[in-house]
């Protein structure tokens, strides 16, 4: 109900606007026809401005959110008659006097636009021209193309899946033992040759032995195992160092 009321109201306001335009056009045409001798150019422009303003208002009205969508409204001709309808003629100012089969399709758009009609006609003649066999053939060809394409799209994924699956199953990309070896190498030189540059190391320097290493693997070289077990691990770092700070050379201390 509410919707209907809204629709009614909007149609009403629209008709009133349109009638405004109409009366403005009326008076303008009247002036053009009867007062053309006295008519000045500025007043013609005024008339045009009035018309354009009114058309703008209509446009705005149509674009308004509250305006129901007229496009979705269907008008159905309920009664057609070949007889003259005086009431109608009066309403339309003698423009349409008969509500007949001839004029309704045009006025109420129950017929497609001429261009659309033309296209539809072309398509149907084309369809009629091709025999059912040929049509069948074309359908088959299209289907084949599509399935081929689908297959092509699906297959590589299969390949990839199998590949990575194989990698996952068959080939390990890393070896935990190597990880440990490498980590302990950078952390405390395990597996690295324990050579010192000749010179500064005084033989028999206190603590020299324990300094060497704490790993059992290296026990043959150093032998001092126990002292490190508790203390050393803490001091023993691992890892390669890369230093974000020194990387930012821009703020390097030596750039005087």
């Amino acid at each position: 109900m509410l919707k209907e009321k809204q629709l009614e109201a909007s149609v009403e306001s629209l008709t009133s606007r349109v009638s405004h335009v109409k009366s403005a056009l009326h008076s303008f045409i009247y002036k053009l026809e009867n007062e053309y001798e006295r008519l000045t150019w500025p007043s013609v422009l005024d008339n045009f401005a009035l018309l354009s303003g009114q058309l703008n208002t209509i446009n705005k009205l149509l674009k308004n959110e509250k305006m129901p969508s007229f496009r979705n409204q269907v008008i159905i001709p309920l009664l057609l008659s070949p007889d003259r309808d005086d009431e109608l003629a009066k309403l339309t100012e003698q423009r349409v006097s008969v509500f007949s089969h001839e004029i309704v399709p045009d006025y109420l758009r129950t017929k497609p636009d001429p261009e659309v009609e033309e296209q539809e006609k072309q398509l149907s003649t084309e369809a009629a021209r091709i025999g059912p066999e040929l049509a069948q053939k074309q359908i088959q060809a299209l289907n084949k193309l599509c399935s081929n394409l689908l297959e092509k799209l699906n297959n590589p994924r299969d390949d990839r899946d199998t590949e990575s699956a194989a990698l996952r199953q068959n080939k390990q990309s890393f070896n935990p033992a190597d990880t440990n070896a490498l980590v302990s190498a950078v952390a405390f030189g395990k597996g690295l040759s324990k050579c010192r540059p000749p010179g500064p190391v005084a033989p028999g320097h206190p603590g020299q032995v324990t300094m060497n290493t704490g790993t059992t693997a290296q026990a043959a070289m150093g032998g001092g195992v126990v002292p490190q077990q508790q203390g050393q691990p803490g001091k023993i770092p691992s890892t390669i160092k890369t230093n974000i700070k020194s990387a930012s050379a821009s703020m390097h201390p030596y750039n005087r």
Partner: protein
Amino acid sequence: MSLMRSELHFSNVSFCSVCQVPVAEGKSVQHTVDVLHKKLEQMGSVKQGSFCVDCETYHATNVSGQPSKLLYVMHNSETPRSCMALYEGGPCIVADANFDVLMVKLKSHFQNAKGHKVECRGSRYRYCDFLIKVGTVTMSSSARGISVEVEYCPCVVPGDCWNLMKEFMQSFLGPSVPELPSVFATKPEGLFAQAEIVDTMTQYLELFNKLRKSQIPGSNVR
């Protein structure tokens, strides 16, 4: 790491000469400094901020018995992000300011001799291409002496401009101009090696050690 891409610029230091200025008889340190400032300003030098050189002394704790060599860690406001560590007459390094943090970590092995901290503060003057720094050397908050550092910025080789430098120093220090700093004379390449920041620091260190050994000259200094 290979991320350290910056080039070292230690060598791009121009020639500096540091010397001690005796405090005038019967005058205070401050008075002598003021006289020097006045002389410099009369020559047309322009004051350009201040400077500070400091020196911390560390001694190793692990070697018991024999006296260990002293490790000096110095800073210079001219190179505010650097830190110079040196042994007297021995090797030295230039490092960044994190070296101080490292010394904190090393405190169980190297002890900071708190009372030995030396500081030298004063003003910088610019005269043409010369940079003159007049500083007061303080040890445990007592002024011990006056240092004058003269740098001839365009020249990197001490041997080239020593005579020129001497003439300049005579112009405001009078005839009592010091000899060529020994740090340059002892270099293997001789006088014509490029000057380094460490050379300047070595001169300061020598000056500090000389002042440290000398007795506080009684009434001359307040």
